[in-house]
């Protein structure tokens, strides 16, 4: 069954990977120009209203883009890769269960295999794919930078990777909830997109901005203070565990 799951997600994962590798190459190539541009823009960005600054992050830090480590973590983990990570997770997660219900192939599986086994293999294969993509793309950042002649360490990327991995599995458990609840493939995609777009909007409201995991996934705290936000990380892992249990319960009781 593991082979079947891998076979089904292989093409999706490869396309995602190829697109993001291109984005990484562009990020590395843009290094000298982006730093120069950002320094010029920093002054103008300081004039923006507060809520827009919140969306952008720490405007003053844009002047630090000449630092290779800072450039990579802010422009790759914190931007080009980090911002798309929830979409990447959505693309991997939404069809895992919903496609089987939609195409009625679930009858083949559930008449021959226990629900527990089916859930375990499907869920954890998807999660492994999400973690593999996250880890590879995170670590390829400093590797590509070094290959391009810049001096970039791995320590920031590893710290960011830890946060991004926790964020990715949280989104994976959340999107699996949509996938497992649905009988078609359209609904989980639509609701998934609403969630991905809706969370940053929630982040604008100060009182509930903690509900938005984007700043955590974008590792802005690591770019600024170099420290991992262990409390948020622990909370996300705990929520992910609860969501996983809920995903399983829904799948276990779902009627065909």
């Amino acid at each position, binding site marked *: *069954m593991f082979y*079947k799951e891998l076979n089904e997600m292989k093409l999706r994962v490869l396309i995602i990977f190829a697109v993001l590798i291109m984005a990484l190459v562009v990020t590395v190539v843009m290094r000298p120009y982006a730093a120069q541009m950002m320094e010029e823009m920093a002054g103008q960005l300081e004039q923006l209203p507060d809520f827009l600054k919140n969306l952008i992050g720490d405007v003053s830090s844009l002047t630090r883009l000449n630092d290779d480590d800072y450039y990579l973590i802010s422009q790759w983990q914190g931007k080009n890769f980090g911002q798309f990570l929830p979409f990447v997770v959505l693309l991997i997660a939404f069809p895992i269960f919903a496609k089987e219900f939609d195409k009625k*192939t679930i009858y083949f599986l559930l008449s021959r295999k226990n629900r527990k086994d089916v859930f375990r293999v499907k869920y954890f294969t998807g999660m492994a794919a999400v973690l593999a993509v996250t880890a590879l793309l995170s670590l390829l950042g400093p590797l590509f930078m070094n290959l391009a002649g810049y001096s970039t360490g791995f320590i920031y990327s590893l710290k960011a990777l830890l946060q991004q991995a926790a964020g990715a599995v949280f989104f994976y458990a959340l999107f699996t909830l949509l996938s497992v609840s649905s009988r078609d493939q359209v609904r989980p995609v639509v609701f998934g997109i609403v969630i991905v777009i809706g969370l940053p909007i929630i982040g604008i409201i100060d009182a509930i901005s903690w509900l938005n995991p984007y700043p955590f996934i974008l590792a802005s705290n690591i770019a600024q203070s170099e420290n991992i936000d262990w409390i948020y990380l622990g909370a996300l892992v705990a929520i992910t565990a609860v969501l996983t249990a809920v995903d399983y319960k829904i799948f276990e009781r779902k009627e065909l």
Partner: protein
Amino acid sequence: MSEKTIEVGKLRKSYGNFEAVKGIDLNIVPGKVNALLGPNGAGKTTTLKSILGLVQYQGRISVLGKGIDEVRSRISFVPEDKSFYDSLTPEKAVRMCSMMLDSFEASRAIDLLNNFDLPLRKKISSFSHGMRTSVYLSVALAQDAEIFIFDEPTWGLDPLRRDEVLEMIRGLSDRGKTVLYTSHIIPEVEKIADVFSIMYKGEVLFTGELKGLDDRFALFSLPIEAKIDRDGLLAIVREAQSLKVMTEEREKVEEIKRIEGAKEETVDLESFFSLLVRGNKNVL
């Protein structure tokens, strides 16, 4: 061959306010083709889904003497909707099943696919409905299962292929396998079943052997104005010009024969099914 196959007791299943299965009992005979015959909406598919644990239900079901989750690898199921993984080719589907299922015979699957004249290296998505059904059947029949469950297996097949599939299903019981098979097509059931149950509106109206139906039951056509005591009758149906009555009691047969204008008719599965369904308590 296991002596215990499928035992269903007081099975109930509702969808909202609609009661699809109304407390039925069913015992599947080992090594035989057991047919579940009934019109659309009789509750046949829901009964199969309950047996396979695909829906929540009330009642008792044991398969091979155990809960379904303990014996899934010993069962092969072909659902009503025969959708297989259409991004695969039949060849890849066989490879996938070999890796996924313990009791799968890849060489047998390839033989069956060839027998159905299916291209092995073309994607299933490009196949016609009948071809897709054939792929599903090839995969299901290549499982070395003890119980084979088919839900309307010949739906959408051309007559030649249909006969071929029926032969294959018949062949399973010849090899000692137990078959549970649903259909609403009477001639099909007549062709391959050993034992049949008639389901109608969520109830099992009759279960018995197909062989010797005409010896066990008597069917009469009576004049429309004939007066008859309903006691001892299995079914009574008012038609445009006559009354049709069916009984299995010898004394009742003699009583009916004495009615003026009574004509005895042959009992075959078609007339038996029709009388029982039209004449059961839900209709009268």
